[in-house]
């Protein structure tokens, strides 16, 4: 068996490898190459070295402030989304009526596209703020709260499903043992359930982290960075750099490369941290 596998390894993996190379590796390498170039389209690039990276940190570029806003947003959404999703999961794994209906309803927002959600929430938030003579772009904090609300509404259902799966996998004999030993509900939750669903937590925190950090559609539709780019997140900042002014495509590309590196590093740190807390079943 092993031998046959080795023999036909190339035959079976080559098509996928080729597709992967064309669709992923080559554009990826080209993307990194382009970040060192001055270009209008990908086919007329001129090498300029580290120039783009220097420009990316210019004061008018707003890269640093966008990074700050994104980081703040990510921290808040990771905490809120995961706490709400886990609480919902706990509720919906009890034997209450209509559990399936609730699970479906909570999951549904995840099926709607970001742009649509952004515009819908913009209308809803504006409708409330109108009565105070304001709009979502009157103040940066409205935009921030709006984004957090929107992100929660969209992501909570998805995370809830993952937590439900995790909670259902907690062995009943462990729970029974805890019960017999006289553990309270709270103790069971903290000492038994939480350690047992740690792998779900790893996945959920990773997904919320990377999705929040890379958020684009919702940001563009909800506030588009207004007021004064104060609610502009990294992905939108890169997009605006790329298309906002002549000759800055390379700078946008350089920002994208740094963005990639930042997301990769943060995600890997998070993975190794939460993984160290996991227990083998």
């Amino acid at each position, binding site marked *: 068996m092993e031998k046959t596998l080795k023999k036909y390894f190339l035959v079976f993996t080559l098509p996928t490898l080729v597709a992967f190379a064309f669709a*992923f590796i080559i554009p*990826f390498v080209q993307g990194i190459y382009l970040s060192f170039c001055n270009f209008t389209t990908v086919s*007329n690039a001129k090498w300029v070295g580290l120039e783009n990276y220097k420009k990316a940190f210019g004061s008018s570029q707003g890269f640093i402030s966008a990074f700050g806003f994104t980081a703040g947003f990510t921290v808040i959404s990771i905490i809120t989304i995961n706490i709400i999703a886990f609480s919902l999961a706990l509720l919906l794994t009890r034997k209450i009526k209509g559990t399936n209906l609730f699970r479906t309803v909570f999951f549904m927002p995840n099926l709607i596209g970001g742009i649509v959600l952004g515009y819908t929430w913009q209308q809803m938030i504006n409708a409330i703020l109108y009565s105070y*003579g304001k709009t979502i772009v009157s103040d940066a904090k409205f935009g921030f709260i709006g984004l957090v609300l929107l992100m929660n509404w969209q992501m909570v259902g998805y995370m809830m499903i993952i937590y439900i799966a995790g909670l259902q996998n907690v062995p009943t004999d462990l729970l029974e043992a805890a019960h017999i030993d006289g553990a309270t509900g709270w103790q069971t939750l903290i000492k038994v359930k939480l350690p047992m669903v740690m792998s779900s937590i790893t996945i959920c925190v990773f997904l919320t982290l990377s999705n929040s950090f890379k958020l684009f559609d919702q940001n563009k539709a909800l506030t588009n960075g*207004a007021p004064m780019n104060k609610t502009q997140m990294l992905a939108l900042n890169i997009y605006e750099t*790329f298309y906002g002014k002549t000759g*800055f495509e390379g700078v946008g590309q350089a920002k994208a490369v740094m963005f990639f590196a930042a997301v990769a590093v943060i995600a890997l740190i998070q993975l190794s941290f939460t993984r160290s807390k996991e227990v083998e079943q």
Partner: protein
Amino acid sequence: MKKKLLSTLLCVSMISAMLMGCGSDGNTDSKTPETNAADNKEDATAGNDAQDSAGNDAEAPANTSGGSVYYLNFKPEVDETWQEIAAAYTAETGVEVKVVTAASGTYEEVLKSEIAGSDAPTLFQINGPVGYSNWKDYCMDLTDTDLYASLSDQSLAVTGDDGKAYGVPYTVEAYGIIYNDAIMQKYFAMDGAVVTSVDEINNFDTLKSVVEDMQSKAADLGIDGVFASTSLMPGEDWRWQTHTANLPIYYEFEEKGVSDAEEIAFSYGENFKNIFDLYINNSTCAPGLLGSKDVASSMAEFALGKCAMVQNGNWAWSQIADVDGNVVAESDVHFLPIYTGVSGEENQGLCIGTENYWCVNSQASAEDQQATLEFVKWLINSDAGKDYMVNKLGNAAPFTTFGDNEKPSDPLAKSMLASMESGKTAVPWAFTVFPSQDFKDDFGAALLEYCNGNMTWEDVTSLVVTRWAEEKAAVAN
């Protein structure tokens, strides 16, 4: 361990997916700059040959070259017409014409990805000198073409540093304050009206007193406000940060005797403030709510008779006419110049210019370039082509091949042509040299902050001055 490896791989692939999205359209056969330049040269000489032969051709072009045309259209509202034109031209000459329309506001993005592909647009559009500096590697020299030769005013073309023409305008447009004459007449008939005819409104002071008086009588006039809402939703603020901003910059350039500048003083900023304050304070909604308004909703307010005036251009006619429940009669729609309180503005006309220039792709094959030139020649010379240009596309085409009876007939275009003939000084579109989209967006964002009371006018002025200098410097190198 295996699980760990798998999850790490999964993680890396997921987070890097976004880099691909930002980075590339998957065009893998990227040329090096050297070969590219060589291609350029070849194309340029071949292109000239092609033009010479095209120039000698008879009026009705025949498909001798075997080239095809690919037009990347800028205006979504006329997409259907362009598809019709393409089909008609193919039926007449056998030359294949493909027309693709970029979604609103995405032209630069689409052009960027399309032109890098193997089947690149042969005919595309730039918005003026700033657009040219971005696309100069792809703009063919049009100096020796019929298209350029037919221009009624050759100074309208976009020229490069070498003085040659690289972009040719295919329409002339105008903007000003569009007013609904029915509401104005109703006001003039009232007791105590400041003036009794629109003709008397010929400077800012008169405009201001009329507008403020009308606003105080809004209920009697049956309107919510004099001006339609000043749309300041991000991305919907171009009527102010580009069009209104044109006036102070134009007057500053006039005073200095220049057509572009690395730095501006925004010395006519107070004039901008005059008209802008008038817009936002005499409107259908409170200044604090303007951040949620878009252009379509202000045009709808005008079409539904909820306001008497709105600043926009002649292209907006379709947006007025197509609104359901439209109560504005075609004969009641006219232009008024945008008065800002500059001395001597009694003689100021509308802002007339263009942001629509045709360019031929210099990196397309010689056959395709020739086919493209023949296609545009057909558009401005043949009866069928001219009919499409004027009546279907509504273009006030600035070519000598168009007779006096071949002018668009919608009320705003008529008002524009009347203004051009009235002897008033038309204000050219100085905003084509505005440094970048970033500059305009920041200006618009500052106006929004001003309306929300988070910025003073001094802050706006200093932002305009510094951002102009920064962006000009950034784009220059």
